[in-house]
C-alpha cells in the first residue's frame, strides 16, 4: 500500500500541484473509481461543519487603563465574562446570558442575546459595551471602568473552544405528550419530528473515525479564519461501540478543542444563536483538511451518508434522566431525505447544522489549499482514537452528611 507523508503533500501544495477534493466529491469519486485508485490520485480531502457548538468562547486582553484596574468582574454588553486570571484578561462563554435575562421564567424563554452574540458582534466590528469592577490594590487602584471597545482596540482576541465539531450526534425525538424545548430545537410530542446535527458525509470527525490524521497542531478553517486543533475536546469519547456483524461502525463522539485568532474571523462563520426555551449559543464554522496518507484514510474519508449512522434518542424522558440506550440507529442518508420511519410512524426530520454552509466551508478550504496559501499542519501528537478505551465518567452525588439536618 502506497503511503504519502504530510511533507510530500505540503510540497505539492506549495508547487500548486496538490489534488484537493471536498469530502462530498470524494464520496462520488470513490463510488466511481474505487477507493484504491482514488487514494493514489487525491492528496487532500476537505470537510466542513456549521452548527451550534455550546462549548465555545473567546478570551481577550483588553489592555490597561490609567490608572490601572485588576478585573474582579467584567461585563460585555451586560453579559458577565469569566475573570479570575490576569488583571485585564477575560473570557466570554457562548452560552453566557445577560444579568437581567428573563431566562425561562415565562417558558419557553427566547434567549435572544447571549455570549455567542457578543462574539458575533465583536467579529462584525461592532462596538461592545464594556464594564469592569475591581477591588483596588496598590498596583491596580481603579475600582470601576465603563467604556466601549471594538475588536481592533484589544491586544489579543482568541476564539478558544474547549469542545467543538462533535464527531457524531444524537438524532433527537420526543416520545412524551407535550412539546419540549431543547438544545436540539423544538421537539413536537409523540414523535412529531426528529432533529439531528452533523453534516454527515461532510463532517470532519466522521471522516477520520480512527484519528489517523487529526491531532494537536492540525491547521483548520475556523470561523472564517485559520485555527488549530490544540487538544481533544472535552467529552472526547471516540470509542466505536460493538455492533452486530455487518452493521456499520458508529463513532460515539470524538471532539476537538480548537483555537484561532478572532481578529481574522467573520460574522458569516461565527453566529450568535438562540435556542427557544434552552439558551443562547454560538454556531461555529469548522473545516478540517484530511491528508490522504494511504488507502485506509481514503476509505474512511469516502464513506457516504448511507453508511454513517446516528443513534436516535428520546429527549422527553431518557436524555434528561441519563437513561442509557437508544431507540436504534438511522443513516444520515435517511435523515437528510426529510423523513424517517420510527416505531411504525413517519417522522419528519430536520437538521440544526447547515449542510449548505458545511459544503461552502469545504469548498473554501479546498480553494485555500489549491491556491497554496494553506499548508497542512502535521500533528505533533494524534488525538486518542477508539482503541484508547476512554469511557465517560459521571457526576455522582456523594460526600459528607448535610450539616443542616
Amino acid at each position, binding site marked *: 500500500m502506497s503511503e504519502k507523508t504530510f511533507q510530500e503533500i505540503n510540497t505539492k501544495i506549495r508547487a500548486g500541484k496538490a489534488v484537493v477534493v471536498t469530502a462530498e466529491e470524494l464520496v462520488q469519486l470513490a463510488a466511481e473509481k474505487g477507493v484504491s485508485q482514488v487514494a493514489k490520485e487525491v492528496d487532500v480531502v476537505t470537510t466542513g461543519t456549521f452548527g451550534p457548538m455550546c462549548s465555545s468562547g473567546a478570551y481577550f486582553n483588553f489592555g490597561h487603563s490609567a490608572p490601572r484596574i485588576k478585573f474582579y468582574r467584567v461585563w460585555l454588553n451586560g453579559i458577565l465574562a469569566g475573570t479570575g486570571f490576569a488583571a485585564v484578561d477575560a473570557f466570554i462563554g457562548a452560552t453566557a446570558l445577560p444579568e437581567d435575562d428573563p431566562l425561562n421564567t415565562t417558558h419557553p424563554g427566547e434567549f435572544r442575546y447571549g455570549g455567542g452574540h457578543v462574539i458575533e458582534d465583536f467579529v462584525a466590528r461592532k462596538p461592545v459595551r464594556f464594564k469592569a469592577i475591581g477591588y483596588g490594590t496598590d498596583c491596580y487602584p481603579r475600582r470601576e471602568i465603563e467604556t466601549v471597545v471594538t475588536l481592533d482596540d484589544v491586544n489579543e482576541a482568541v476564539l478558544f473552544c474547549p469542545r467543538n465539531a462533535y464527531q457524531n450526534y444524537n438524532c433527537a425525538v420526543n416520545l412524551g405528550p407535550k412539546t419540549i424545548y431543547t438544545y436540539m430545537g*423544538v421537539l413536537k410530542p409523540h414523535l412529531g419530528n426528529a432533529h439531528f446535527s452533523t453534516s454527515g458525509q461532510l463532517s470532519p470527525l466522521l471522516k477520520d473515525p480512527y484519528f489517523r490524521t487529526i491531532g494537536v497542531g492540525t491547521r483548520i478553517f475556523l470561523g472564517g479564519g485559520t485555527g488549530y486543533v490544540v487538544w481533544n475536546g472535552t467529552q472526547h469519547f471516540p470509542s466505536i461501540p460493538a455492533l452486530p456483524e455487518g452493521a456499520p461502525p458508529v463513532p460515539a463522539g470524538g471532539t476537538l478543542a480548537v483555537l484561532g485568532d478572532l481578529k481574522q474571523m467573520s460574522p458569516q462563520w461565527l453566529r450568535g444563536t438562540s435556542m427557544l426555551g434552552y439558551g443562547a449559543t454560538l454556531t461555529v464554522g469548522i473545516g478540517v483538511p484530511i491528508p490522504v496518507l494511504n488507502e485506509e484514510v481514503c476509505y474512511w474519508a469516502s464513506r457516504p451518508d448511507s453508511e454513517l449512522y446516528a443513534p436516535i434518542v428520546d429527549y422527553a424522558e431518557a436524555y434528561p434522566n441519563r437513561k442509557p440506550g437508544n431507540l436504534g440507529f438511522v443513516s444520515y442518508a435517511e435523515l*437528510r431525505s*426529510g423523513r424517517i420511519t420510527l416505531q411504525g410512524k413517519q417522522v*419528519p*426530520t*430536520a437538521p440544526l447544522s447547515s*449542510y*449548505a454552509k458545511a459544503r461552502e466551508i469545504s469548498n473554501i478550504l479546498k480553494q485555500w489549499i489549491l491556491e497554496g496559501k494553506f499548508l497542512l499542519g502535521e500533528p505533533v501528537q494524534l488525538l486518542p482514537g477508539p482503541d484508547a478505551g476512554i469511557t465517560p465518567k459521571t457526576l455522582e452525588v456523594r460526600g459528607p452528611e448535610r450539616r443542616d439536618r
Partner: protein
Amino acid sequence: MAPSKVVLRFPAAIADKPIIFHLVKDYDLMINILKANINPHKEGTMVLDIDGEKAAAGLDFLRGQGVIVQPITEDVVRNEERCTHCGACTAICPTGALHFERPAMLVRFDSEACVVCQLCVRACLMRAMEVRI
C-alpha cells in the same frame, strides 16, 4: 382559533342594514371593532377582530350580504442575511412553506403556502424569520 383581523367594505346599498348584529347573535362571535367609517347610503369600511368557532361561517354570511371581506395578513418574512439554511424550521413548519430544496440543501420559503402561524419565528436559531404587519 386565534382572533383574525379583517377589513370589511360595505356597498352603499347595504350600509344601513344591521349586519354586525348577526355576527354576534347568529354566529356567536366575539367582535372587536377597531375602526369604522359607516355613513347612510355611502360605501363604508370597518376593521374587525373576529374570534369564535363560527368565524368562517360568519365571514361567509357577510359575503352573502354583499360585504367585501379582506383579511389583514401579517406576513412572515425571512431575513436572508441571517438565514444559514440550517433547516431547523423545516420540520416545525406545518404547511411545508419552509422546505429544503434538494440536493442543494437550501431552505426555500414559499410565502404563498405560509399561514402565518409564526412557529418558525421563535424556533429559528438565527432569529431570521420576522413578522411584518
